[in-house]
């Protein structure tokens, strides 16, 4: 019984960490609230859609920026979509990069755009890994080293407020 509680604690600690580091924002909470026994996989499903959408958009962006004559309107449209879907699941850091990205589009600044693409790819990759860890941990508790490490760091933390998430 203790080990179950401990595993839950680890998961909670890990999730809180993601919030603290800005990877996730309140919208992710909103999604979790929409999940229940009748829709036990809701969050995973929505996030999976986000992953697919993002990968497609990142591909399109890369292609668009490689063109001889860059179509900033098209790039802006893609970034807008990416910004929208990242905000829908609470992927805050991805969303923030998109905002800067759109400014560079407006300025028709190719270097700025390329830099942002690089940044957004990185942020996307980070949040994807972390979410996948979170989901895997939820399904197979106790097997993710990353989660265990976070939990050990925070082993002194009080639980009550956190478990109320």
């Amino acid at each position: 019984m203790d080990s179950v509680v401990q595993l839950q604690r680890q998961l909670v600690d890990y999730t809180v960490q993601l919030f603290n580091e800005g990877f996730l924002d309140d919208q992710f909470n909103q999604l979790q609230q929409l999940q229940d026994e009748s829709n036990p996989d809701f969050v995973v499903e929505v996030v999976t859609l986000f992953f697919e959408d993002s990968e497609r958009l990142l591909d399109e962006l890369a292609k668009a920026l490689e063109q001889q004559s860059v179509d900033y309107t098209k790039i802006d449209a893609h970034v807008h979509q990416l910004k929208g879907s990242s905000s829908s699941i609470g992927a805050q850091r991805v969303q923030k990069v998109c905002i800067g990205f759109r400014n560079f589009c407006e300025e028709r600044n190719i270097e700025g755009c390329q830099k942002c693409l690089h940044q957004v790819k990185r942020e996307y990759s980070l949040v994807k890994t972390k979410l996948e860890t979170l989901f895997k941990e939820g399904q197979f508790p106790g097997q993710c080293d990353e989660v265990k490490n976070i939990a050990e760091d925070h082993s002194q933390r009080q639980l009550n407020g956190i478990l109320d998430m």
Partner: protein
Amino acid sequence: MVIPVTCYTYSSTAASISYKSKGHKRHGTLLLPPRAPLKGNRQFFLTPINYKLDMGSSSIASNRWMFEKMDGFDLSPNSDNGEEEEEEEEEEGVHVLAVDDSLADRKVIERLLKISSCKVTAVDSGWRALKLLGLLDNEEDKSSSSSSASSSSSAGFDVLKVDLIMTDYCMPGMTGYELLKKIKESTTFREIPVVIMSSENVMARIDRCLEEGAEDFIVKPVKLSDVKRIREYMASREVRSLQNQEERSRSSINKRKLQESFGLSLSSSPPSISSYQSRSPSLTPSPPSLFSSSPPCSPSSLDSPTRRLK
């Protein structure tokens, strides 16, 4: 024959399908093959009676694969295969048409609405929304039965009856604003409240939508509190419309009293715009009378001197 259906997956091995055939509602349970991938947005099934059901974008789980036969599909009418389904039957509850080109957003809004006891049909474009409403063939003014008979787009089932439309603003092809305009231009559907959703909190855009007749404007990402507010508005709208009906059948004295009380709420600048500008997206609700929908019974109240009840 292709029939649009609503499908809810309630576990990774089963889905519940609802559709209408010849005016009858039917429910069925479908067993999904193992390891069904959850992506994409179209899914085809062959039913035991050879109806090809096109779930379109109102389905949740989907990919482009075909069944040769469906195990466990029960076509008995009104069989309820899951308590997880929405509580209301079609006759009660609010039926919302949600329009958004993003699949993730559609999934979220669909869940938000269902959890708020609404029935949902989600589509991916304004064009498809108009098609479902029967507005695409320039036959707006025909009655629903004749348009479903004559229009091939309705595929032999009733044109959708909705109580509320929620649409994204930025969509390829037809924007939410354009969809709004088309709906307000239609004599059949102009009374249906339309809510615009947008990730951009741009005042000019909000104003434009409201001026065109939008009921509300939600800044994305959409939250449960937003949907609750809309739900309360719909509930109070229904109450008010019932009240209006009662009032109208009463004597002229009562009618005058009603005019006075509406004169109060319709005073000064158009309430829609002024109440919007003062509202930030995270603000909650002013009482559900978001825009006191102009009472059909007393147009003259606008001209009468406003008498405020202190």
